[in-house]
Structures are given as structure tokens and as C-alpha cells.
């Protein structure tokens, strides 16, 4: 399953010895960091401007992205969503930029390797339990016992298996989509190199966006489930 090819990142001397998905992931993260820094500097320079600029400047673009992410989080999680904007937004930007870098020839996307996607999904898994314990204390374990007390011996294994299936499904979904898409694009280029790969690239654009969106939505659903209070 090793997809060894030429990557632009293998030209950088420091990152050549790392596995290809790690070096590409670092490269894309550095790009996102630089974009974030430029946005931050421009926001500080602008001060308290309420009226946005007329043209599409970098500041407008950055504000568009941040506002979209913030709206998504608060729409799905209610008024307490602001605490989770940082984690969910960071994950979404990381996954989005890595997915899109798959479309550029010469990059191997970090999310097309199991390690990266499982790192993201394990982060979400650990943070759901952290938020749950921070919110409810030790009574967080009561969620595993189900609605009625005498159902607990049946409910606990079911709930534990369900909880363990979450990071596996999150990571596998993202990995499978990205890896399969990369393979299909490579095969399409090898098969009929002229116009036919365009369909593979259009599919790649769509899949990149949709998979990021689905990952974000599921993470928010898990967070909301962890901090939810029982209402009768």
C-alpha cells in the first residue's frame, strides 16, 4: 500500500528523512501558520474597523473563513459552542488544507495515511471525555448506564463499544476517502492522461470539502453529547 512518488517536500533538506506524510503534513501546517500570522497582523493593523473593505483583501478572506467556522460551531452546539470553536476550527483547517493539497500534483496529503487521521480522531475522543468529566464530574459515568438503573449491566458494554467505535469510524472514514481518492486520481492519470482525470479532480475537490465538514459535524455532535444535561 506504499505510494512512493516524487514530492516537492523531498527537496527540503531537513525533512527528507521523515516519512512522506509527516513531511507533507509539516509543510501544509507551516503554510496554514503563515496564513494565520498574516491574518493576525492585518487584524491588528485594522483596529476596530466595522465596515469591511470593498475589495477581496486577505483580511476579508480570513474573516470569511473564521466567521463560517464560528457560525457552524454555534449553530450546531448552541450557546456554549464558543469554547469549542478553537479545537474544532483548528482540526477543520488542518484537515481541509491537507485534503486540498492532495489535488496539487507533487504533494502526498498527510490525511491519506492512517496515522494522521487516527491522530485527529483520537484527539476528539480524548477531548470528549475530558469535556464530559470537566462538566459533570464523576457523574459523567452515569451516561454509560442508560436510562434505567437495572438496565446497567446490558447498557454498559453496548455504550463502551459504541464509544470505542467512534474514533475508529472517524479516522477510517477520513483515511479511506482521501486514500481512495488519491488512488483513483493516480489510476485515472495512468489510464487516459488527457481529459478523463478532470472528473477525478472535481470529485477530489468535492470529497475534500465534504469530508472536512462531516468530521467537524461528528466531532461537534460528540462534544454536545458529552456535555449535555439530562432534561425530562
Amino acid at each position, binding site marked *: *500500500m506504499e505510494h512512493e512518488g516524487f514530492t516537492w517536500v523531498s527537496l527540503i533538506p531537513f525533512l527528507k*528523512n*521523515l*516519512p512522506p506524510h*509527516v513531511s507533507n503534513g509539516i509543510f501544509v501546517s507551516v503554510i496554514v501558520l503563515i496564513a494565520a500570522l498574516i491574518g493576525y497582523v492585518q487584524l491588528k493593523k485594522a483596529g476596530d474597523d466595522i465596515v469591511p473593505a470593498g475589495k477581496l483583501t486577505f483580511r476579508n478572506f480570513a474573516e470569511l473563513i473564521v466567521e463560517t467556522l464560528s457560525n457552524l460551531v454555534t449553530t450546531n452546539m448552541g450557546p456554549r459552542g464558543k469554547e469549542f470553536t478553537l479545537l474544532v476550527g483548528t482540526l477543520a483547517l488542518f484537515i481541509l488544507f491537507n485534503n486540498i493539497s492532495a489535488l496539487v500534483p507533487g504533494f502526498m496529503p498527510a490525511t491519506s495515511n492512517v496515522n494522521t487521521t487516527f491522530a485527529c480522531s483520537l484527539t476528539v475522543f480524548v477531548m470528549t471525555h475530558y469535556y464530559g468529566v470537566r462538566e459533570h464530574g464523576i457523574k459523567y459515568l452515569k451516561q454509560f448506564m442508560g436510562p434505567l438503573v437495572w438496565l446497567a449491566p446490558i447498557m454498559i458494554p453496548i455504550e463502551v463499544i459504541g464509544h470505542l467505535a467512534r474514533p475508529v*469510524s472517524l479516522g*477510517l*472514514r477520513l*483515511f*479511506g*476517502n482521501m*486514500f*481512495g481518492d488519491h*488512488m483513483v486520481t493516480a489510476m485515472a492519470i495512468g489510464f487516459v492522461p488527457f481529459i478523463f482525470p478532470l472528473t477525478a479532480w472535481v470529485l477530489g475537490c468535492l470529497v475534500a470539502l*465534504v*469530508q472536512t*465538514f*462531516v468530521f467537524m*459535524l461528528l466531532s461537534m455532535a460528540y462534544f454536545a453529547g458529552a456535555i449535555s444535561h439530562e432534561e425530562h
Partner: protein
Amino acid sequence: MKRFLTVLMLLGIFLAVMYGIACAAGEAPAAGLDSSVKQMAALAAGLGLGIAAAGGGIGQGRGLAAALEGIARNPGASGKVLTPMLIGLAMIESLVIYSLVISFILIGKL
């Protein structure tokens, strides 16, 4: 506290990078399988994905048909119908993707 967490995070990154370099340096060779096992593995890789794609296609087709009917009845709600439809399609597609991953693993063992 913040400093401790920063030092811990940098240490973790350093260890991970060292582990990555060590892993990339030494790769273990894999042993080959029996010929009859390879035949069944090839058959399983192809047929399994075919069955998964059939089930996924039926499921997504039904979901898409319901969404399109909803949009046809009420064209103004197309934005609100489109978002859950995309989520549902991605959920159903993920089951097909699980089968695809198993097929990749089997092809790797051929």
C-alpha cells in the same frame, strides 16, 4: 503550568520525530502467502467491494430521491435540505469506504 505544558508538548513532538526517523530508516521485509490463499484474497477484494458498492448505491439513491422530492415541493428550502442530505450521503458512503480499506489491505497482501 502553561510552561510545563509547553515543555511537555515540545518533548512529545521531539520524541515523535525521532521515532519517525528511526522507523523510516529500517523497514522489515514481508513474507509471501500461499498461492491458494492469494487466489481467495484476490476474489474477496473484488467481490467484497462490489457488494458494498451495490448496497451503498441503493442506500444513497433512496436518500437522494427523498431530498430531491423535498426540494421539488419547496424550492426555497433547498439550502436547509442540502446540508443534512450531504451528511447522510457521507455517512452511508463511509460504510462503503470501510470495505474499500479492507480491499486495499487484501491487495497489499497479494
